[in-house]
Structures are given as structure tokens and as C-alpha cells.
């Protein structure tokens, strides 16, 4: 389905939409391929700790990413490789963080999905679900106080399981009270680790919670990039133009394990067969081809180019040296004069 009116000229609107769709699709593809490479590195024992994929969620994630701009704030969650790329994260940040390179943004200290560059508006998640949202609020509040909020927005992602946290609630209520340009994107991928939605919440659609927080609510089929773009663009535009916080709930299905250690055998086969279980990447490709926006060949070329770039980046990072514990400062405070040199960590 095409968006109704993106600009005054319907044809310009179509072209704009097509361009956005293609851009988003490339990030989806990039994320999917990167995820797959990380999964194979995991299987060959090259990654310490867990690997978390966004398979099946790329349309929603990339869709959000392309609706954001430089200067916006983005707090991705564990399945947002696509949105991160679309927001401008370099894939080397991801690979370095997974492989623990000291050259990555987390300098071997934190890993996998816990990466970001706060000063560039990309927040590095802590693991505690729901915790990032109020931080986005605070960034928006600060900008407003500094009179430089302008039309910037903050976007935060969460799974449906994360909505059960107190942190989620407090932050949404806060965004409502402060009427912040917060775009809250909830990927309802039907499971929180192994827990199905009927053990997680008792309403039909989490979007029913939007009004109670003073949010506009939107629901979108998370497997359909076109619909994701349309809905997310509307929500982001609403937020930008001062219409207050927005909640988007996207039903879809996690097409992978919770992490790569998990065979996800608990996923209901009926869900896999349902509309929710469609692969958003395939659907996007079908549309690209059907609309004549990209040919199968072009898609194949993109794929090989991206794979080559991914492999090259992985090789680069694998040649980087591992962190050296004795070169570490082992100091958690930034203030040098407050570093406590006799806190029992070492023998006197």
C-alpha cells in the first residue's frame, strides 16, 4: 500500500517513498547478512558471550532508522542491527564490540548489543530492560531547556516483554507529562525469551496502553516494510511537529532464537505458519521486484557487495590486537583526583 500523500505532488510522494523503501531495504539486507555472519562466528566459537539477532524484525527496525535524522536520539535494543545501520552506526562498531576489540566504542569493556555513542545520539543499552527510555526523555528535556530541541525526536525500542518492567511505565508516564517528542517502538515478536504473550500481558494489543500515557497509538504489521515506513514516518512526523509522544506497536515473529545459544523449539508452529511468521526481508524483496524498483539481479549484487564488505570488516577487526589488561586504567571515575588508590583491590 502506498502512503496517501507524502507531498502535494502525488508522483513526488511516490518517488520519495520508493527511495525511502529502497534505502530501508538495503539496511535490512545489510543487517540480516551481518547478523548471519555474527551467528556463524558464534558457532565457530569466535565470540565471547551471547549473540542476539534481529531476524524477522528488520523491516520495523530499519524503517525506524530511516525515519530518524542526524541530531535525533536513538536507543536501540537487542534486535536493532538494521535500525542502527540506518541511523548511521558503522558496522565496524558492531563487529568490534562483538569481538571485544579495544578499538570499538566500548573498548572491550562491554560487548555485543551494549554498544553506542552517546554523544552522537546513539545510546548504548544497559541490559536492564526498559532502562533506556527515561534516558532518552532526559536528553530531550535537556535539549528543550537548552533551547535546542528544535524538531529533533528521540526513539526508543523495546520488545513486548520489556513493557512489563516498571522502568517502561515510569518513563512513558514521564514522557507524557513532559509532552516529549518520544517515539516508542514496541516489537511484539510474540515471545520474551521463551515466554509467550499470554504470560506477559493481558490486553489484546499493547497499543491500548498508549492513551493512558497521553501517547498517540499506532499499530503496524511489522513484517511489511511499506506499512512500517508509512506508520513510523507518521509517528515521527507527529513527534517532530510537537504533537507529543507516540507509541507504535508492531506484531511480528522472532525468526531466530532468543540468542544464538537458543534453538527456540518452544515457538508455536502455528505462529510460524501465520502471517506473523512471514520473513519481512522476503516480502520487501517481492515488493521491490514487483514495483520494478530493484531487479533480482540488483538485489543479488547488493547482497554480494554487502557480504564482501562485512567479511572485509571482520578480517580487519580480527587482525586488531586483543585488549591488554595491564594497560587498562581500572578506574570507574572520570575525575582523576577522586580515584581511590587504596580500596582493597590489591595487596597493600
Amino acid at each position, binding site marked *: 500500500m502506498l502512503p496517501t500523500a507524502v507531498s502535494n505532488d502525488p508522483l513526488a510522494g511516490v518517488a520519495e517513498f520508493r527511495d525511502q523503501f529502497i534505502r530501508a531495504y538495503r539496511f535490512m539486507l545489510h543487517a540480516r547478512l551481518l547478523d548471519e555472519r555474527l551467528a556463524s562466528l558464534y558457532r565457530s566459537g569466535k*565470540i*565471547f*558471550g*551471547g549473540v542476539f539477532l534481529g531476524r524477522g524484525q528488520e523491516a520495523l527496525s530499519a524503517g525506524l532508522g530511516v525515519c530518524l535524522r542526524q541530531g535525533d536520539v536513538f536507543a536501540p535494543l537487542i534486535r536493532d542491527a538494521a535500525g542502527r545501520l540506518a541511523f548511521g552506526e558503522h558496522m565496524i562498531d558492531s563487529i568490534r564490540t562483538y569481538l*571485544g576489540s*579495544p578499538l570499538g566504542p*566500548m573498548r*572491550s*569493556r*562491554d*560487548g*555485543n548489543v*551494549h554498544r553506542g555513542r552517546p554523544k552522537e545520539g546513539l545510546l548504548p543499552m*544497559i*541490559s*536492564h*530492560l526498559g532502562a533506556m527510555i527515561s534516558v532518552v526523555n532526559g536528553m530531550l528535556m535537556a535539549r528543550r531547556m537548552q533551547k535546542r530541541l528544535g524538531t529533533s525526536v528521540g526513539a526508543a525500542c523495546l520488545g513486548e*516483554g*520489556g513493557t*512489563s*518492567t*516498571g*522502568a517502561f511505565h515510569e518513563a512513558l508516564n514521564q514522557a507524557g507529562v513532559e509532552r516529549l517528542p518520544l517515539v516508542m517502538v514496541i516489537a511484539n515478536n510474540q515471545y*520474551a*525469551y*521463551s*515466554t509467550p504473550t499470554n*504470560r*506477559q*500481558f493481558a490486553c489484546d494489543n499493547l497499543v491500548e496502553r498508549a492513551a493512558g500515557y497521553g501517547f498517540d497509538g499506532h499499530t503496524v504489521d511489522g513484517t511489511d516494510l511499506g506499512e512500517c515506513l508509512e506508520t513510523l514516518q507518521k509517528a515521527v512526523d507527529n513527534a517532530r511537529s510537537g504533537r507529543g509522544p507516540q507509541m507504535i506497536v508492531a506484531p511480528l515473529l522472532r525468526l531466530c532464537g532468543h540468542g544464538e545459544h537458543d534453538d527456540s523449539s*518452544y515457538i508455536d508452529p502455528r505462529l510460524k505458519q501465520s502471517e506473523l511468521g512471514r520473513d519481512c526481508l522476503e516480502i520487501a524483496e517481492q515488493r521491490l521486484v514487483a514495483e520494478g524498483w530493484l531487479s533480482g539481479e540488483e538485489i543479488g549484487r547488493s547482497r554480494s557487495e554487502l557480504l564482501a564488505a562485512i567479511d572485509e570488516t571482520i578480517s580487519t577487526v580480527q587482525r586488531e590486537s*586483543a*585488549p*591488554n*589488561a*595491564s594497560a*587498562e586504567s*581500572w*578506574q*570507574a571515575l572520570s575525575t582523576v583526583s577522586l580515584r*581511590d588508590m587504596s*580500596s*582493597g*583491590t*590489591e*595487596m*597493600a
Partner: protein
Amino acid sequence: MSITYLDAIREAQDRALKDDPRVFIYGQDVGAFGGAFKATKNLAAKYPGRVIDAPISEDAMVGAAIGAAIEGMRPIIEMQFADFSTVGFNQMVNHAATLYWRTGVPCPITIRLPSGGTSGGGPFHSQSLETIYAHFPGIVVMTPATVEDAYGMLLSAVAIDDPVIFCEHKYLYYHLKASSLPTESLPIGKARIARQGRDLTVVTYSAMVHECLAAAEVARDEGYEVEIVDLRTIKPLDTDTVVASVARTGRLLCVGEAWPWGGVSAEVIARVTAEAFDLLDAPPQRLNAKDTPVPYHPNLWAAHRPTAQSVAQSMLRLLRL
């Protein structure tokens, strides 16, 4: 037959569910899935309606456990990682811990915290939080170091009429094996001499017991016999056993995987110096993790926490003082 530390935790829960209809388990993914670490594998099928998946709501999980305890149940709460207990913290330290003192109604709940570092765990899946719980009145804090204690102490935890924070170490889950489950165990609150020695007392607990045991072999090669005290519970803390050991050795080293400021090792030293100052032939010393979050990369992680190697160095330095 070989039983891991993790098996022991599952077996203890199985037995608790079997023996006592008041017991139930509540936590994220503990049901059909059997828990993130499989500590409740098969239990939901075996005990229908008594092994219950929770939403991602640690505060409400603990709150519900308190309510169930008031109604005579003996809930076991599984936190998916110790690190996430910080969001259930208030119900633990302000509600469960104060209930008996305030009302005279006991609060028999057990909260299992998969604790401690593993390679690649990073800052939020590696924490050792025993100290912050032990600081609050009204809580028992257990830190089992062996397969036998994982089993016996968890059964005791469920039987105890007070809130128990059960810090089970993730590194030991698979690394530690025993040939069978114990039929009896030391009373709760009693420390254990994990290794006898005459030259130095090392007080430790949980996974660090094994680093210290390995380090003691290094010290033996240098001609020293190190005694190792495994605290088992850090609150209450068995000062008597520690002091009796120091009376034999005259030297004290405390080793913990937690952060250094104000933890178990400080508490042990403060007690020993207050109660047995004259028994000490050298300054008591501590070795803890470094005072930063727990790093992700294995190289950094290995340097962040005490290891057999760094413990051995500390032992030898103290032995030569």
C-alpha cells in the same frame, strides 16, 4: 554418575517441590522452558501449576512471593541473573527483610541469584551482589561453593522461615561436579574448613574457594600450608570458625569476587581484628575484584577478578611478611 552444581540446584528444587506442597517456583522462563540456565528443567511438567512463568517484573515477582509467604507458601524466586535483582531490590530489602521484625509474621522466601562472572558476561551479567543484601537486616545470604552445598543449602534456604538470598555461582554451574548428592550437610551459618593448613588462613566463599584451593597448591610448592575457610553463608557470618583458624595460623587473607569497598572481606577483617587482634602475626589482607564494572573481554575479565594466580601471589606476599 556425575552431578554438576547446576544439577544439584535443580535436584534440590525438585525435592523441595516433592516434599513440601507449600513450595512453588516463580521466575522468567522457569516453566516449560526450564529457565535460562535450565535450573528448573522438567519441573513444570512434573509439578503442574507450581513452576510459574513470570512477566519481566522483578519487583512484582518478589512482591508476590512475599504475599504468598504470608499465606503460608514457600516460594522460590529465580532472578534470571543476579544483576537484574536491582530492579526487585526494594521489595527484597524493604519489604521481605522487614516483615518479620515489623509484624511478627515470618517471610520464608528464597531468591535465587545466578551470580558472578563468566567469560564474556560483561558488566550486566556478571555481578556478585551478596554485599548489598547482607548489609540489610532481616536477610540470610548464602553463597555455596560446592555441589553438595548447592544442594543442601538450597533445601535449607527453602526450609528457613526468613528471606534467603541464594547466590549461586554461574561459573560453577557446569565446571563443578560431584559423584553424588549429599545426604546431610553442615548446619546453615557454619563455615567449613575447605583445606587444612597451619601457616595462613584464607577466608573466602563461592567460586573463589576454588581459586584459593588452587592457589594453596602453589603455596604448598613453596613450603606453606594454607588453611581455607569457606564461609558458606556470609550473613550470618561464622566468626568463630574464622577466629579459630586464625588462632592456628596467625595470618589472614580474605578473598572475594565482589567489588572491594565494604564487602565480605572488609567485614571479616573488621570482626577478626576486633575479636582476635592478638592472634594476628601480620596485617590481615584482602583481595577482591577491581573497583570497576565487570569487563566483557576475557583478557580483562581474568584480570578484574581474583584468580588462582593472583591469590597465590597475595598468599605468598602475606606469608613472607
